[in-house]
């Protein structure tokens, strides 16, 4: 076998410096992730904007045409959209303060030096371990008007059976209650980490000044964990805007659209009516709402 020996002498070949090699490898190493991020994140985001200005139905993919702001104009005249927007805002405005206060309360409880604090932490956190689909199915049984255990407990206290998910007045509130139960443990953990960092001396100093429990909470605890509180408020708000699984599994958006949300409507238009253009317009409005409200929240919390 002939062995090729026409290798360029080492001295003539320009040796690649270590720094250059490093830079080249940097590009190579980051490329897989960057290609994936571009294909499955950046490209879809750009496409969402583009499609939102188009008349584009998946059932007729060749009939794509640019229609300017038509989708957006249609959106703000669509009463179902306005209802969905109202429902999403209602859910967010109620769930965020309730869930964050419950989480903070639980964190304060299990931060106390009592033997059962560890058990409490595990119990309060346990619903977080359960996926939202599981929780939603489970609570549909618990909320059942005839055989649900919650109505059974209410009967025990002399309250008559409530329709919960079957009533347009109660459905959203029932979902709120369940959502708080499911997720409060998550925020509790974040608050707990914040509370651990509050220096003990601050409490001692406050006690010396004769502060009571409420004053200690207001003047020591709250200011010391303000950055944690801000973060928790923002992530809870973003999470709340994304409400979808609960109405999808429990009420299918009803009764009479009372639990229809923005994401629900986005899903419905995209995958049931196959209306890509209209659904993309909802996606863009949803994106802007989430972005703007977390931005406003950040500004407000800074003060």
């Amino acid at each position, binding site marked *: 076998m002939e062995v090729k020996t026409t290798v360029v002498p080492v001295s003539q070949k320009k040796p690649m410096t270590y720094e250059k090699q490093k*830079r*080249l*490898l*940097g590009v190579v*190493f*980051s490329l*897989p*992730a*960057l290609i994936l*991020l571009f*294909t*499955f*994140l950046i*490209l879809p*985001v750009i*496409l*969402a904007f583009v*499609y939102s200005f188009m008349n584009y139905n998946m059932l007729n993919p060749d009939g794509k045409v640019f229609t300017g702001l038509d989708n957006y104009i249609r959106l703000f005249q669509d009463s179902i959209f306005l209802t969905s927007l109202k429902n999403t805002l209602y859910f967010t405005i109620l769930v965020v303060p309730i869930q964050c206060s419950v989480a903070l309360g*639980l964190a304060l*409880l299990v931060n*106390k030096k009592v033997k*059962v604090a560890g*058990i*409490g932490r595990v*119990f*309060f*956190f346990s*619903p977080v*371990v*359960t*996926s*939202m*689909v*599981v929780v939603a*199915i*489970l609570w*549909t049984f*618990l909320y059942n008007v005839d055989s649900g*255990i919650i109505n*059974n*407990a209410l009967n025990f206290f002399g309250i008559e059976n409530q329709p919960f998910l079957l009533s347009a007045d109660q459905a959203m509130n029932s979902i709120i209650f369940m959502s708080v139960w499911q997720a409060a443990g998550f925020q509790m953990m*974040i608050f707990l*980490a*914040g509370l651990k960092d509050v220096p003990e001396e601050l409490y001692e100093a406050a006690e010396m000044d004769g502060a009571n429990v409420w004053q200690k909470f207001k003047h020591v605890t709250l200011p010391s964990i303000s950055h944690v509180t*801000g*973060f928790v408020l923002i*992530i809870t708000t*973003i999470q709340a*805007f*994304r409400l*979808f699984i609960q109405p999808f*599994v429990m009420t299918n958006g009803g009764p009479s659209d009372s639990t229809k949300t923005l994401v629900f409507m*986005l*899903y419905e238009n*995209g*995958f049931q009516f196959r209306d890509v253009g209209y659904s993309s317009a909802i*996606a*863009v409005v949803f*994106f802007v709402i989430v*972005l703007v409200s977390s931005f406003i929240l950040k500004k407000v919390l800074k003060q």
Partner: protein
Amino acid sequence: MSYQTKEKMKKVFLSIVILVLGFLFIAPLLWMIIASIKPETMIFKDMGFSAFFPKEVTFDNYMAILFSERVNFFHYMWNSILTVSLTVLFGLFVNSLCAYALVKLKFPFSNFILLVIIALYVVPFESMLIPLYIVVNSLGWINEYPALIVPFIASAFNIFLFRQFFMGFPKELEEAAMLDGASPWQTFWRVVVPNSKPVFATAAILTFVSQWSDFMWPLIVATDKKIQTVQVGIQYLFADRTIEYGQIMAALTLTTIPVILIFIFFQRYYVQGITSSGVKG
């Protein structure tokens, strides 16, 4: 009353409050697990506290959903375990390598790329759902396994997590390796990775839990039973009104078990993951 007894009373009171509230938080899950090991006829007969004390224990519900031809819940479990594990494994590799390159092997625009990645983290998944579906569809992946894996390998959040860790990685260790003539790849693979176990564990657990619980995406790309995951599987079981309640409860319990196991065995990293995402703000 002396100071000590007063303190003690306070502690007893606090403990009672924690235990009562704790019971309220865990009661629905207890009810789910207990209902899953009860005979069907007893589930809605036992009410009040007796609902939590089964008079008769049976595993028929589990047998029925796991091994019956009709439900075959094991199939959904397997699909979830397969797709989630592959997403985690590929993700750890790709994201850590990318973060390492961006932090340690600086190249033109690497800082700018990092900024873009961090900014991408704020995009809610739902707002790109339809275009992502169209991209995946044009790759011919609808109802194929890659649809559940490939789009979720690269993660802006995980790259950010790795970046935070690698920035604090001791320079001396890397320099020693380089003086020994190790290439950047060898330095990464033999020095950085073995010494970064906590961040790998945190990223793996967070990815596992969020992928395992994901519902919306599998709902739209897995319309065929072939690749359906547990979350979609239980939704179909639930919507199919002919399935017995006890069997649904068994399915719900099975769906939850993997995450419970992770929580029990990796509690430290799990909680660290939650709180580390919290400190950055």
